[in-house]
């Protein structure tokens, strides 16, 4: 008997309600049925499931990320519009040694890095020890390494490991 991941099920039901833009009991039931069927059908295609704890940490993380996003948007906008001042923009790759191992952690990290303009995920080594990102406006590498590890990696490790 395959087991249906409960959180995911709830997420799907909520999705269904959002899609239909309603909270009628009928749709809740329908959504529940459909979601569980889908999960049953798809569970073998998603063998690895996350085990999350201390979810409240995520809240703080998201606040940080939100702030960073706005900041980096402004930053990139200045670079693009050439308002960044006379200094020539120097962009480059940054290698970050990482201690996290959980794929889902990395997934969230990838989301964050992609969502914040000015940084792009380049690659993670096979042994998941070194992460390379590309930074648009690279002034100080160590600053970036610290920021990724402190602000993002630690909370993620708390949640996923």
């Amino acid at each position, binding site marked *: 008997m395959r087991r249906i991941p409960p959180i995911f099920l709830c997420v799907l039901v909520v999705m*269904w309600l959002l899609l239909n833009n309603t909270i009628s*009991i009928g749709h809740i*039931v329908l959504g529940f049925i459909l979601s569980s069927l*889908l999960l049953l059908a*798809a569970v*073998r295609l*998603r063998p690895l499931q996350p085990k999350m704890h201390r979810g409240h940490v995520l809240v703080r993380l998201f606040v940080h990320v939100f702030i960073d996003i706005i900041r980096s948007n402004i930053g990139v906008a200045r670079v693009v519009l050439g308002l960044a001042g006379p200094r020539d923009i120097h962009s480059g790759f940054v290698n970050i040694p990482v201690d996290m191992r959980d794929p889902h952690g*990395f*997934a969230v990290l990838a989301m964050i890095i992609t969502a914040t303009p000015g940084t792009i995920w380049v690659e993670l080594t096979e042994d998941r020890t070194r992460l390379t990102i590309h930074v648009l406006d690279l002034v100080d590498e160590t600053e970036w390494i610290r920021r990724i590890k402190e602000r993002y990696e630690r909370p993620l490790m708390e949640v996923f490991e």
Partner: protein
Amino acid sequence: MSLALIVLLPFLGSLVAAFLPSNARNAEAWLAGLVAVTCAVLVADHYPEVANGEIIRFVVPWLPQFGLDLYFRMDGYAWMFAMLVTFMGALVVLYARYYMSPADPVPRFFSFLLAFMGAMVGVVLSGNLIQLVIFWELTSLTSFMLIAYWYHLSEARHGARTALTVTAMGGLSLLGGVLLLGEVAGGYDLDNVLAAGDVIRSHPWYPAILILVLLGALTKSAQFPFHFWLPHAMSAPTPVSAYLHSATMVKAGVFLLARLWPCLSGTDLWFWIVCLAGLSTLLLGAFSAIFQRDMKGVLAYSTISHLGLITLLLGMNSQLALVAAVFHMMNHATFKASLFMAAGIVDHGTGTRDLQRLSGLAHAMPITATLATVAAAAMAGVPLLNGFLSKEMFFAETVFAGQGPAVRIALPAMATIAGMFSVAYSLRLIHQVFFGPRAEDLPRAPHEPTRGMLVPSALLVLACLLVGILPSRTVGPLLETATRSILIDDMPTYSLAVWHGFTLPLLMSVLALVGGFVIYVLLYMHRRRSHGRTPFISRFDGRRTFDVMIIRLIRVAGFLHRLTSSRRLQTQLVLIVCIAAGAALLGAYVNKVAWGGMPVTRVDPTLALLWATGIACALGAAYQAKYHRLAALIMVGGTGLITCLTFAWFSAPDLALTQITVEVVTVVLILLGLRWLPRRIEMDDPRRRTVRARARRARDAVVAAVIGTSMAALVFAVLTRPRRLDLSSFFVEHSLPQAGGGNVVNVILVDFRAFDTFGEITVVGIVALTVYALLRRFRPAVESIDVPRAQREDLERRSQLAADPNEMLPSGFMMVPAVLVRLLLPMAGLVSLFFLLRGHNLPGGGFIGGLVLATAVIVQYMVGGALWVEARTRLKPLYWIATGLLAAGTAGIAAWFTGNTFLTSFAYELHLPLIGTVHLFSTLWFDIGVYMLVVGATVLMLVALAHQSLRSYRRPAPAPASSDLHVEAPSTAEVDR
């Protein structure tokens, strides 16, 4: 009734004969003989009636709408010919029984012989001209089969084909003539036509009719210039030559001329054409006959000349001439047939027919010699033989033919000369074969044949003698009835006496005999130096001309075909688009199409900008598609996006939705294909710089520009006209109340015009099946068989490229994407179901839902790898397709049980706890069918394409060039099993 039987019996006999065992010579002969005799008796049985001028009729309605009935009609003339055909048939069968060797497959022979007999009887007994044409063509066909009886001889094949082509062509023109004749005479049956003589002769179509009919008759009767087929028909077995090519079939032409004589003759046109044809044939045939080496050759040419004689008589527009013609038809049949039989006997006995080698056979085969001599004498027109009588009548006619002075002198002279020739060749034939020193070097020792072969010939010779000595007692009455039935009331007075006193005709006969003797002696002096080639005219060999014509015809046809057709696709497409555009522009010009009256709405800069983008993408794609395929693909995708936005902009959300999903799938699909389309290397190709290439590109550019402009103009012309509301208003008004759906477009798709959707999904299913079938036996381009370069690099690190089905996540750069995309799958599924279920009231529906789910699955393939996914799921696309089709179908049929027509929508009220009542529309079931089919088809196509790379995934070694293809074919096969 018995008339039909006379015609039918031979055909039945032929069927039976065809199925007898191939060695049953006697059975065949008995059957055939019985049939022939029976027919003869049946014919003879009718003599009393026809004798006193009755016409026996038998009609079976066949195609009365077009005046075509099976109408058998026997009058005296027909009776005479029927008798000739059946009686001769009997004799020939008897002869053939002994002539054919045991080795020959006789069933074919006798079956075709009988078929011919039937056809010939059909010709003479036809009371309907179309029916006559039918049997006419049948005689051509059967004669073709009989000539080619020994088809292993190229001579036979060739002769048969020549004969068929010439006579069938004649038959076709005869058909044309008869059609006109029928139209003029107001019906195809003979009685009408014969009655309408004056109408016909005075009708403007008369010349056309005459020429067409004559073409038919003259080709059949081997008249100049169509005579050449007959000598080559001699490669047929001798019985066939005796029967078809002397006695009966070749008579069909003159038979027809006499048959239609009352309604066609009597004009100058008739006189000149027919007489000229006859006279030239008479002379030419007789002259050539002198120089033949082959016995049958001599007989063939003499047949030609005698037919010419008959034709000439028919052309003279005089009743007496007609009588003479009919008389000579019978006489010629008798002596010529017996001569052919004699030739066959000689051939049989000695193994050759070559006049050079044959000599002095009289000692070895006295009876044959005697018979042949008498027959030849008849042919030469020696007194006391039938040939003499008719020939003298002929001479008389030439003398008294009433035309101008030139004719009055020339015609008798020519006739006499022809007579001399015929004496000469008859003499030569007999003398060289039967007299002189005994030939030594013959293939076989000559000997008298069995009685069976002699009897028929003997009977015929006897007939010659009887008729020749006692004409009025024997043939008189028959001739009387026959001719009377043709020229009903204006019968001429003539006497069939052997002696008319010293008359000019008698003098001509004597001259002919003497002259002929002299000619032969002169020739003999020349030590028979003839090599079968006719002096003066041998260069004008009709047959060679004919062959050349046929070859030319085919060559010309080939040339024209290359000229009027093309195997190049571009040419075809240019033609199509140009003709379409041309037609449209022409229509616009002719009808003076103008813009409509409605004002144009103001331009929204945003959309304008969007379309500037879209147009740029389209042009870019057009420019890049040759060498930068990926770029072109992406640009086309861009255009698609703009198109989709446009649909949305002009309030067509469903279209936009469908367009966008289709876009995505199409891009993936074409990329999957590009894997197997080896990259083109761009180089400055000299061929692109040739003038022709430039010219073609210029032409295409112009064509494209013109067509683009006209399309734009067309659209604008429509857009500036008021729209018609009839259909849309009906749909909008009935959509909610009757069909219970707010989204009119979707309601149209699943209810108002569900039948379209029904067919549309079938198309998708069919295509999926085809793609699958084609890929089952796909043979990739050599260049793209081995693993792509990028993956080959990985092979240094990994044993094989295929993902391990057991690993949780792909190693390497695909790990994080895999996590995310697998998270996405259930969500996508939910979205697809959402679109499926809400379609009836808001944009969406089965198609979109299906594509969404299919795409979600495909993405799993992209991140996980084919084998990984398939190790963990078993989707059976074919079953999805089938189920989809069945669901849609049953959704339609379900309506039958509610007493409605196919695909009528109906709702089923479902009361559920804590959900309340749910209206289940049958259209939802239909939409589910669409959904399943689309999922199945899309997945099948994409995955079948993706599977191609499995063929090579275990071969790390980069494949060398094409050479290894065949080598590794089996290995792949066993990998696959």
